[in-house]
């Protein structure tokens, strides 16, 4: 099957700052892929280029076989976009918003009316179809927003941090709707997020840090690569504690995000000797299976929360 999205050596500069650097990736039909990265990591820049509102400084990108720079009209027809802030007209009803959207994509008449009805039902919005968008809750407005983005049955749906401002229940609800849209229409979803739990449930995850693609794969595979367990210690003096552990136990211990961090095959077995050796310097200790945050740490060489302005 041909790729729905393909980028080759995509790069972008804002002045002398490299916002995006040599990003090459391919998305297959029907995949749900997370674009994970800290704020300012280049996610929005990548989406602006893919959604044809901005030209890249370097490299190429094609969507459904159309080049984003040379054939923006074809790309736009194949593309749906859900923005960080809902792009609904708050003074219009849910149904009016959908009909207006259909017109923008060249749909009209009974075909459009039917499609709007189907979409309202699929997204559980039939009861609220006649209500002004400004009266909807954040979760419902987001649902209406996604319904609007997929009304014209795009091949690729870009979602820029769609769960911003949603509670966990609404967030899960959103992911279920994406999965159903994918199952029914084969729409590929590319979802920018800075939440690990959101990325973990996607088919694949692309990790973007400081404009570079540092990982691309299934979440389970990426996590397996880290292996073992991760031990984290809090301390009043994490730097000093890390030095002391390295000397005493002859093992790797680094400070990340204010915590001393160690990767071990058997983390639990390490706890007793550690606590015995530094009873006054360890405030708390945790042992956990690695997650995407540990993948990020390993691939980006720093903790996720440390920001992106390095």
């Amino acid at each position, binding site marked *: 099957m041909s790729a729905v999205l393909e980028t080759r050596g995509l790069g972008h500069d804002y002045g002398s700052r490299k916002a995006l650097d040599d990003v090459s990736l391919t998305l297959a039909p029907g995949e749900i892929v997370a674009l994970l990265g800290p704020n300012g990591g280049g996610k929005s820049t990548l989406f602006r280029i893919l*959604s044809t509102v901005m030209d890249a400084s370097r490299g190429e990108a094609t969507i459904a076989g159309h080049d984003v720079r040379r054939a923006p*009209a074809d790309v736009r027809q194949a593309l749906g976009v859900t923005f960080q802030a809902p792009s609904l007209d708050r003074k219009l009803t849910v149904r009016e918003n959908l009909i207006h959207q259909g017109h*923008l994509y060249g749909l009209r008449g009974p075909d459009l009316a039917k499609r709007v009805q189907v979409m309202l039902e699929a997204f559980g919005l039939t009861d609220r179809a006649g209500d002004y968008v400004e009266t909807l809750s954040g979760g419902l407005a987001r649902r209406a927003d996604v319904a609007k983005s997929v009304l014209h049955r795009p091949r690729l749906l870009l979602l820029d941090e769609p769960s911003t401002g949603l509670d966990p229940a609404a967030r899960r609800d959103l992911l279920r709707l994406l999965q159903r849209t994918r199952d029914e229409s084969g729409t590929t979803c590319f979802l920018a997020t800075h939440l690990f739990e959101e990325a973990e449930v996607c088919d694949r995850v692309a990790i973007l840090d400081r404009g570079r693609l540092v990982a691309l794969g299934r979440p389970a595979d990426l996590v397996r690569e880290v292996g073992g367990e991760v031990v984290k210690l809090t301390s009043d003096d994490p730097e000093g504690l890390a030095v002391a552990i390295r000397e005493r136990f002859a093992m790797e211990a680094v400070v990340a995000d204010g915590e001393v961090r160690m990767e071990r095959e058997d983390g639990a077995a390490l706890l007793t000797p550690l606590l015995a050796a530094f009873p006054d310097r360890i405030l708390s200790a945790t042992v956990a299976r690695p997650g995407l945050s540990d993948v990020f740490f390993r691939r980006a060489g720093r903790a996720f929360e440390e920001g992106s302005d390095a």
Partner: protein
Amino acid sequence: MRDQTWLPAFSLWQREMVRFVRQRSRVTGSLLTPVLFWLLFGAGYGGSFRPAGAPESSSFEYFLPGTVVLIVLFTAIFANISIIEDRREGFLQGVLVAPVSRLAIVMGKVLGGATLAILQAVLFLAVAVATRSAFSGGGPGPAGALEAAAALVLLSMGITALGFVFAWRVDSVQAFHGVMNLLLMPMWALSGALFPAAGAAPPIRVLMAINPTTYGLAMLRHGLGRDATGGPAPALAAAVTVGFAVLAVTAAVLVASKRRKTA
């Protein structure tokens, strides 16, 4: 290929209409404010005012076409402020990634502004006639009404598109206030709406001569059966008004078509 211009333009136009009706404050701003100005100027100057070179007419009569142009201007300003709001609230980004020609975005806005301006102007003129505060000497004939309507459509398209050129690039309503106060309001004040060119100081007369609104107002006055009081000849007024509308719409399409290189 699907229609990327007229169906989207129609939809955007329709949205302008619906939003106007649902936002009562806009009716106040774009219709009642000019009417208030008209009442104040008309009653304030009263019988003591007669424009230089103007035939005998009441000040209500004199200020009538200028008030119509003010309705056009305020409608254009509100239409353009909504571009800035649409950008801020996120609606516009959805339109920009849709397969819609930039002409459609401009036409939706400009024709929306023109429609609203016409409706309000007709309402205003109807009230003026009903209260016998204008057209005491009889209203315009069909040809004159047509000319006046054409003047209104062209002028509102021109002014809305001119505002669009600025509103498209600014990201706050505050920034647009500068454009409004330094460009759009002076364009109205120096159009012959407040005083005729005949009696003005030479530098002001130059400004009035290069102001496209002057010609739109002259065309409107002529259509409504009012003497242009030393203003441009009817044919010149019509030609400049058409040219202004075409140029301004073209400029707006060019501005909207420019893809950004930076965030």
